[in-house]
């Protein structure tokens, strides 16, 4: 794999949380490469550092040492302003708890990343309607989050993560708040609509039923990546992970 086709390169990433004298090592030397256009899943026991790792990758948390390059940019070396602009342009977010703004309707929620990127409201909302149609919610554009089911809210969130055409989407437990069927629909959407050769997905999950959607699965424990398995290539399927 050449560097230029890498979406993410983590080398020896270390993160220690210091909460009033008590130090917790969340990432203890993480090494991980993620290719462009790949769907990478991060799995592992609770507290092993998955969320911390995608926070560093998404540029919303600074590691203490080591290097994390995203599309060739060392995020730690970027100024605050550049990092904001980098996130605004390149990163999409999908959360377990959806995190939609409750007083904005679906189209307004979806338009937020474009507004942050300085695009006019009218144009942003017009584009939002188009993306909502793509995720199958063309008939609910005026609905408030409270008027939507969990699966529908997550689809709005996916539309929001897509609208500004970011190169990387990070998802933390995107299906954990949903039932099995809805979770699969959401994964289908992520795989079919969100993922393509210029867009990388990193998905943290506990949910073994969706492992089959991954291209590769990185297993973490205790702040380390302990193994990375190829899923989509049938010869590399690792049975205990599925």
């Amino acid at each position, binding site marked *: 794999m050449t560097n230029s086709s890498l979406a993410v390169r983590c080398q020896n990433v270390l993160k220690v949380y210091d909460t009033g004298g008590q130090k917790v090592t969340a990432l203890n030397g993480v090494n991980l490469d993620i290719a462009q256009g790949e769907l990478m899943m991060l799995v592992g026991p609770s507290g092993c550092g998955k969320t911390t790792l995608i*926070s560093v990758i998404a540029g919303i948390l600074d590691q203490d040492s080591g290097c994390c390059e995203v599309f060739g940019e060392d995020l730690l070396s970027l100024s605050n302003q550049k990092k904001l602009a980098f*996130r605004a342009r390149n990163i999409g977010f999908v959360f377990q708890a959806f995190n939609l703004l409750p007083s904005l309707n679906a189209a307004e929620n979806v338009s937020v990343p474009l507004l942050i990127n300085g695009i006019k409201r009218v144009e942003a909302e017009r584009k939002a309607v188009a993306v909502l149609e793509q995720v199958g919610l063309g008939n609910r554009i005026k609905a408030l989050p409270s008027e939507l089911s969990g699966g529908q809210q997550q689809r709005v969130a996916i539309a929001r993560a897509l609208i500004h055409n970011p190169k990387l989407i990070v998802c933390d437990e995107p299906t954990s708040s949903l039932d099995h069927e809805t979770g699969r629909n959401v994964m289908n959407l992520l795989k079919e609509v969100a993922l393509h050769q210029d867009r990388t997905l990193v998905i943290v999950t506990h949910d073994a039923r969706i492992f089959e959607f991954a291209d590769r699965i990185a297993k973490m424990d205790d702040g380390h990546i302990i193994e990375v398995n190829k899923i989509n290539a049938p010869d590399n399927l690792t049975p205990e992970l599925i």
Partner: protein
Amino acid sequence: MNHIALKMLMGDKGKYFGIVMGLTFASLIMTQQPAIFLGLMSRSYSFISDVGLPDIWVMDSKVQFVDDIKPLQDTELYRVRGISGVEWAMPMYKGLLKARLTDGTFQTCNVIGLDDATLIGGPPLMLDGKLEDLRRSDGVIVDIDGARDKLGKPSLIPGGQPVALKVGDSLELNDHRAIIVGIAKVTRTFQSQPVVYTTYSRAKSYAPRERKLLSFVMVKAKQGQDPAELTRRIRDNTGLAAYTQAEFMTLTYEYFMHNTGIPINFGISVLLGFIVGAAIAGQTFYNFTLENLRQFGVLKAMGTSNWTLLRMILLQAVLVGSTGYGLGVGLTALFGYLMRHSILAFKFPWQLLLFSGTGVSLICVFAALISIFKVIRLEPAIVFKG
């Protein structure tokens, strides 16, 4: 992003209402209490402004305010008349005298004696009768509030409202008969006694025998004569105190400012309104920000700058601030309008709008600052927390 800030704010109607109510309350107190205060203080000098006509008031040099009567000898009137630049100078008697009512009870009255010939210094508005009727024998004019209330005749039904005095009714002032020839409207003063107008010579006959009975000399300056200069000339020539109308009003006003608890009392309630308003509004606004912290975190994670978030919060603060201010000031104006016929003092100059506007702005800036501080320090990584 501005419309997002506004939608966030209005999204929860209950909380929005709570913040606006807090600010309305603060703005109401900070406007209405000073309005009452100003109204009350303007009563201290309303007798002077009611008289209106003279440019200059001359009195004993020890007089501290309009109700502080230190009588002069009648001869002082002629000395003032002799000073160059004086168009005219008229005597005025002002004093408290006991009136005996028809049911035999006594009531202290504020008796004003006017120059017999010109009747200068009379009431601002006659409701019944004419000022000239004072020249009829034993004639007096009483103010309408006194005539209705304190000087009123006992009700025919026990416990009922007193029957108002009318033209033609009579009173006894220090054992002298007085016949009511007119009813007048006067601006309320601090003194709650009924006001009785009569002529200077008759007032002297009502008053207890004393060597000095002249309360004030009212002076009109000749045309083209600078009143301030004339005031100085009168002072130099007579050794008496002489004030322009405005100076005399200020003297009286300041006496009450410095020698009564009124400013302190109102100052405390305005301060309390400010503090309670700041506490309620600051607290609810800060709580609102805290509850929306995750939303701000999401915006921050998605790349919104602190500067934009700061502008959003400021916009929210400005909106609740101006709504609360408008409601508070509006309620104050309504209050003043509804109370316009009551005994309540109320004065609402435009400067008061600036005063309470500044107060409300301070509260909003304070509320916004603590919220902004919180949001700026917010780690965007909280968005992944459960």
